[in-house]
């Protein structure tokens, strides 16, 4: 929980509807995310949670509805605008660049902060090298924070699943995001890994003030670290409030009945 101004709204999605052909991924979904909070999006499989993140990111364009980010209202987000506007994310199925090392992957997260042109890059000595070293220093902070120093130079394809997820978080953090979208960051992790991940998420939120939108299936984690929760089912919003409110909501319980979770 964060004591900074909770009232400022960072992102608001309004009446978002998204479909692919005949499949309605999202129908008339509206909620907001306040600055500095940890907002969880939960719901049974196929509820449209990842699609929602993809809409915020600009990867999917909704047929209806608007997205208001940092006061600016849009019909749809462009991926580039989202990235430059400080939105970073991790992906459900890990979208790391397999041909590169951990360090290089996280360095790509700094791409929006680096701009020395082709000529300087070819020369290397001079402005390009200085820029590279400056950004390398920042990335090393991220690496320290996530405790992944030992695997810096390892090609990410060789890393175990849990570490890959951590590297992906590192890449997102490297961009110094205002809004961090996390898509099931703890999927497939054991208890110890989950505790580490929760710690990283909370520290990111508390120390750097990063607003976090989180998709997660582990109810224990959700209830522990979220400020507020929104629940989706079959593409519609069925509940929205604090963890306690949502936990007690009958429609949420109904939606989850019959679906096991750990």
């Amino acid at each position: 929980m964060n004591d900074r101004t909770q009232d400022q709204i960072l992102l608001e999605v309004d009446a978002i509807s998204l479909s692919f052909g005949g499949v309605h991924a999202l129908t008339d979904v509206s909620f907001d995310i306040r600055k500095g909070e940890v907002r969880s999006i939960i719901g049974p499989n196929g509820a449209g949670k990842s699609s929602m993140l993809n809409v915020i990111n600009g990867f999917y364009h909704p047929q209806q509805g608007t997205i208001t980010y940092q006061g600016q209202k849009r019909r749809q987000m462009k991926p580039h605008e989202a990235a430059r506007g400080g939105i970073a994310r991790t992906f459900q199925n890990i979208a790391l660049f397999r041909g590169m090392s951990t360090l290089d992957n996280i360095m790509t997260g700094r791409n929006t902060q680096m701009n020395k042109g082709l000529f300087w890059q070819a020369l290397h000595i001079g402005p390009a090298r200085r820029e590279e070293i400056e950004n390398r220093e920042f990335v090393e902070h991220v690496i320290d924070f996530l405790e992944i120093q030992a695997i810096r130079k390892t090609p990410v394809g060789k890393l175990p699943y849990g570490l890959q997820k951590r590297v992906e978080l590192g890449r997102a953090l490297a961009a110094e995001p205002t809004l961090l979208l996390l898509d099931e960051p703890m999927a497939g992790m054991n208890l110890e890994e989950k505790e580490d991940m929760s710690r990283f998420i909370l520290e990111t939120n508390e120390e750097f003030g990063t607003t976090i939108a989180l998709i997660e299936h582990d109810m224990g984690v959700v209830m522990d670290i979220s400020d507020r929760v929104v629940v989706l089912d079959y593409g519609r919003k069925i509940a929205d409030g604090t963890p306690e409110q949502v936990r007690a909501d009958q429609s949420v319980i109904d939606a989850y009945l019959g679906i096991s979770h750990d």
Partner: protein
Amino acid sequence: MAFDLFLLEVVISGLMTGVMYALVALGFVLIFKASGIFNFAQGVLALFAALALYDFLSEDGWFFGLFGFTLPVWLAIPATAAIMILLAWIIERSVLRFLVKQDQIILFMATIGLAFVLEGLGDLLFGSDVKPLNIGIPQGASDWALDTFNLYIEKLEIVAAATAAILVIILAIFFQKTRIGRALRAVADDHQAALSVGVSLDKIWVIVWSVSGIVALVAGIMWGSKSGVQFSLSLIALKALPVLILGGFTSVPGAIVGGLIIGVGEKVAEVYLGPFVGGALENWFAYMLALAFLLFRPQGLFGERIIERV
């Protein structure tokens, strides 16, 4: 009146060439549909098939040298088909099975390597001179067309068109209605998933490459009868690419339609635009057409729309 007739002849000539392209493109579609591999060697397969067929039929072939007699056409064709099936099996065992998990681009480049191997082998075994292929397809212009419509159409091309039509119908039925056809479509979608439900990848691939080999044989017969069996046959493979772009990589009817459009387009452009730019438009027109198409409809006329997921 004469002008219209000329245009019609050009168009029909283009359609006929288009049918020939389509035959080769069909082979591509089959393999791509079932394995996601873009088989660059398809053209060389057609050449190889034609060379093998010639060998069975003629007295300066290995077969005659070994056994002292040549095969009649009705035996030679099945014999060549058998060779193509054997070849498919060899390719699966020595190349494909080792590349199952690799990216598409690696597989594509492997087929380029395969094309080179088959080309070198073909040259070594059968020699690189042009060979006439005569299996009894009627040659010369169709008298009927000449008399009835005053149009010059070659009998060979009519036979080719009819063959292509029959082939398409057979293949369409094969894919839609049979168990093997369904398995092929599963494999094309996702190798790993298909493996996990018990589809035997090796068998499927041998089947597909065999069918493709037989299609290549038909294409080789048609092209070989028309212009003799020669190396340039393998370059047809490159022409098939624009055909596939237009028709969609996974569509059997698309290969036909694409082939026809490219065939007509090329011919018309060559005849009507060619004189202004010095000729030989056919070298690149098909690709530019395909390029233009790609920019507006990347999946082709009949292909499946690609939806990306993250």
